[in-house]
């Protein structure tokens, strides 16, 4: 499944500035692993040591927070839009 992933500003250093990348993945967990393969360092920013999505990182599949779907097991299909959004906006500019 090819899905598009929107990357928030603070993480674009890891995607060579790209605000959107395309990834092959059958579910959200796989998506994060494949993101890491393509853009080393991303997974540590998104997941804690146990591999769980960090509390203040929101991952949306077609505008629904995956916490309220199946979490990392949330299935993806072709054309799905995934957004990664820090829960608290802002930070230093």
């Amino acid at each position, binding site marked *: 499944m090819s899905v598009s992933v929107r990357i928030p500003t603070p993480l674009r250093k890891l995607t060579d500035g790209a605000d959107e990348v395309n990834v092959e993945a059958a579910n959200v967990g796989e998506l994060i692993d494949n993101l890491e393969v393509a853009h080393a360092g991303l997974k540590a920013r998104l997941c804690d040591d146990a591999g769980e999505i960090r509390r203040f*990182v929101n991952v949306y599949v077609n505008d629904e927070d995956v916490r309220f779907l199946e979490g990392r097991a949330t299935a993806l299909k072709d054309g799905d839009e995934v957004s990664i959004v820090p829960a608290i*906006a802002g930070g230093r500019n």
Partner: protein
Amino acid sequence: MSKNETSKSYVRALKCRECGQEYPIEPTHVCEFCFGPLEVAYDYDRLKGKFTRELIESRPQTMWRYKELLPIDGEPTVGVQNGYTPLVRARNLEKYLGVSELYIKNDSVCYPTLSFKDRVVSVALSKAVEFGFTTVACASTGNLAGSVAANAAAAGLESYVFIPHDLEQGKVLGAGIFGTKIIGIRGKYDDVNRLCSEVAGKYGWAFVNVNVRPFYAEGSKSLGYEVMEQLGWKAPKHIVVPMASGSLCTKVDKSIKEFIKLGLIEDNGTSVYGAQATGCSPISKSVKEGSDLIHPVIADTIAKSLAIGNPADGYYANRVIHESGGWAEDISDQEVVDAMKLLAEKEGIFAETAGGVTLGCAQKMIESGRLPRDESIVLCITGNGLKTQEAVLNAYAKPRIIDASLKEFDVLAQADGVK
């Protein structure tokens, strides 16, 4: 600024609540690594033995008598007289509710704008001045807007306040009168908050609850410190706080833990309870469901000061409640009005809708047995009823109009059964 060695401040760093990474003291609020919220960390070891009851008692009765535990470097420059509101023994409510020891922490008379927000704002603006900001701003459900506007005016700072467009008139007027630039947003508080994150990133102002939030939030602890001092250097067994973002809940808990750590009080095993209106109860719902996930909601309640559908500190409030052995409850808008009236008629305290939420939820938790009847309970009343008059316009007896005639009054007195 070169830190600890040269500064009198006991503030050590900003620390991520999630991953523990530390940052220097700057106007920033999000961990760059894991996006968790930053919190002020203190050097408690240096404070031990120096920050004593005697020292505190020797100082003026303001929130700044606890200044070592508030995150500014020098002396406060904004809101120097704020805080130190009455703790009232609520004997009439004790009888009515069938409890043995009930207190009201009455921040409905907090100086200068009649809500507990004067505490957080005086810290945020004092810190903003230290950082060198000249314009301050906030996203607000009303009370914060008034407090930022007033305290900024007194401090000679420019201010912008952002509010939902449909707030109570008392809140709008109560901010606008101070000459602030007041912006009404077509949307809910959560929309206002999102916009303010973008504005804060662009304009370089001190947004008290965005980029200065770690400092701002610490101001709430002063409410907890005062309660403990006013109880005779003792923490209550139970304390009930209204929840919007959930921040007050976490900071009251922190205040108690700090006083225990510094040896100022004994650990009384205090349980913290949260109160919400059912029309906006994401935190209460998560507590009752035994979950730590906060599901954002679209807020719909007359308790507009608590109408935050996506509460920033919801997870931490939930955890404090859980770990302290407390509970959370929520009540309908009608119950909010009933409780506002009850508080006014029994204790002579006219609280805003959030105060109705706090008392109404406490009442519900007393009836359900969650709050024991025979142990000390403190209710935190955080805002003034004169600012939310719309909520009770049809809930009180209107004056009976007569001529200036004794005869006419006699008729009324007789009808009232006056002898």
